[in-house]
């Protein structure tokens, strides 16, 4: 493996659409072989950043190098070595599953026999061999996403870019996709993905940046981000009444930090059980109490004051 070789280097990268600034100066380095994630809510600027890196949307400012080249000048050369799995399906609905791969591979200048060989391999890889002759229209959302992943691999890309790869999929379909992506990572493919699911980021990413309103607010491995920006545990309390604010003032001192959400209170502390006990001893009876470990969701909440699911 190339080790420290940077496949993506962005410095002060910006993108605006008219008066709207979607990306407001971000620095990112993605190294060969790693799985790198952009975590953030919808509209944070993740997709705009991905489109710039994929060399289909010119940056409005800053510098960007992808595979050592300039996306504005060397678009075709860069794209020939990338795999792109967009957020919305862009499959050709009039064609069959296999035809989608055959036709797409030709855009990369591959010969017909070579494309046919790879198409069959990839259909097996995403477990779609038995649907090879089906029209794409007839596929479920999960199968379409798998086909999109297969299509994005037809040119044996050095870096696979996935924009919200499992949004809208049921749990089973998500896990199958995660498994395939994990295998690709094992084989040395660099993964670059965006997600607003913290479990997806934790499962797949070696390193990630939290992005909000077009700027990076934190960077690190999932474990490191949790360590740096949250407590070890969280005590979630639900009270029936709408007097969350009043309760919050009474229990504020029990943890390192407290967040008031519309439906619950989150008390951040090293020992969540101790918080739960202290709440009860204080004469309060929450409708439900849950003690759990901190996740990236908590990191995000802490850094932006908003929840990812919003």
């Amino acid at each position: 493996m190339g080790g420290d070789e940077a496949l993506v280097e962005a410095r002060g990268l910006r993108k605006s659409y008219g008066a709207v600034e979607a990306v407001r100066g971000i620095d990112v380095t993605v190294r060969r072989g790693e799985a790198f994630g952009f975590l953030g809510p919808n509209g944070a600027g993740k997709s705009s950043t991905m489109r710039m890196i994929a060399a289909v949307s010119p940056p409005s400012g800053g510098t960007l190098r992808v595979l050592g080249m300039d996306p504005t000048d060397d678009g075709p050369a860069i794209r020939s070595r990338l795999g792109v799995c967009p957020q919305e399906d862009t499959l050709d609905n009039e064609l069959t599953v296999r035809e989608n791969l055959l036709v797409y591979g030709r855009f990369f200048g591959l010969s017909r026999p070579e494309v046919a060989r790879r198409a069959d391999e990839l259909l097996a890889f995403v477990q779609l061999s038995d649907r090879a002759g089906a029209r794409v229209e007839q596929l479920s959302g999960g199968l379409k996403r798998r086909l999109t992943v297969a299509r994005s691999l037809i040119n044996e890309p050095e870096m696979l870019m996935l924009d919200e790869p499992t949004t809208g999929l049921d749990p089973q379909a998500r896990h199958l996709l995660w498994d395939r992506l994990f295998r690709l990572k094992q084989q040395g493919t660099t993964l670059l993905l965006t997600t607003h699911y913290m479990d997806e980021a934790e499962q797949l990413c070696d390193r990630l940046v939290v992005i909000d309103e077009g700027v990076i607010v934190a960077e690190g491995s999932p474990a490191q981000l949790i360590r740096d920006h949250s407590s070890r545990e969280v005590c979630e309390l639900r009270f029936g009444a709408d007097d969350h604010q009043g309760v919050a003032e009474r229990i504020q001192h029990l943890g390192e930090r407290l967040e008031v959400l519309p439906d619950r209170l989150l008390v951040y502390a090293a020992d969540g059980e101790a918080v739960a006990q202290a709440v009860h001893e204080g004469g309060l009876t929450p409708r439900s109490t849950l003690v759990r470990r901190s996740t990236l969701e908590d990191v995000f909440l802490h850094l932006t004051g908003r929840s990812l699911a919003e």
Partner: protein
Amino acid sequence: MAGRVESATAGLVWRQLDHWRVRWRRTWRGSAVTTFVLPVLYLLAMGVGLGAYVDEGGPQASLGGVNYLDFIAPGLLATSVMQTAVGASTWPVLGAIKWDKTYFAMIASPLRPRDVLLGNLAFVAARLLMTAAVFWLVLLLFGVVALPWALLAIPAGVLIGMAHATPLFALSARLERETGFMLIYRIGVVPMFLFSGAFFPVSQLPDPLQWLTQLLPLFHGVELVRALTLGRPDLLVDVGHVAYLLLWCVVGLALADRSLARRLGG
């Protein structure tokens, strides 16, 4: 390793051959039947049926002294390729942007918006060639083509189609909603179809309307094809028609190139 990177436009357009070939294979049978059957119906109803009344007092001077069937046949060829061009450069273009989003998949590969545009237009040209050729064969069956000049009506048909396809492609690439197509049909396609001299000589129209029709590319297309199928081209006039149609192609292509690049690469 992916194939050698060829950023020359011709190479990148050529790589789309299989894409368009497979799409063609899915639809050509249905369109071939309509392409053949419709002209036959039109020629029977209008050329033969209606023509019997028009020709009652012998060939009309305003029709250039020919039978109504001979007059209307080239007009139908020209309007037919125009309609094929409209169909191929409106809904499918917006669909590839908005619904299937296949253009976005294509530009994620080495292809650039310009390559996609040229590939798509080459496909449209191939469809136009089929429409024009099939129509021409029908005309041959009806015995209304004067060889050898009439052979040129086929490439002329492709040219007429492209003169409409390129500006409409530009328009489609800018549309947000398909309701725009209704407007294009009502205020553009239908009046043009009726008033471009395909069914009656535009000399029958009041002067201001006559001048307006002369701006329409279809008028020049009809005149050109008619001169060719009747076997009596006038070099200067017909080169003028060709030049005017080419102008529409060139301007349309430039506009389409800008529109698509902006729509896909924002």
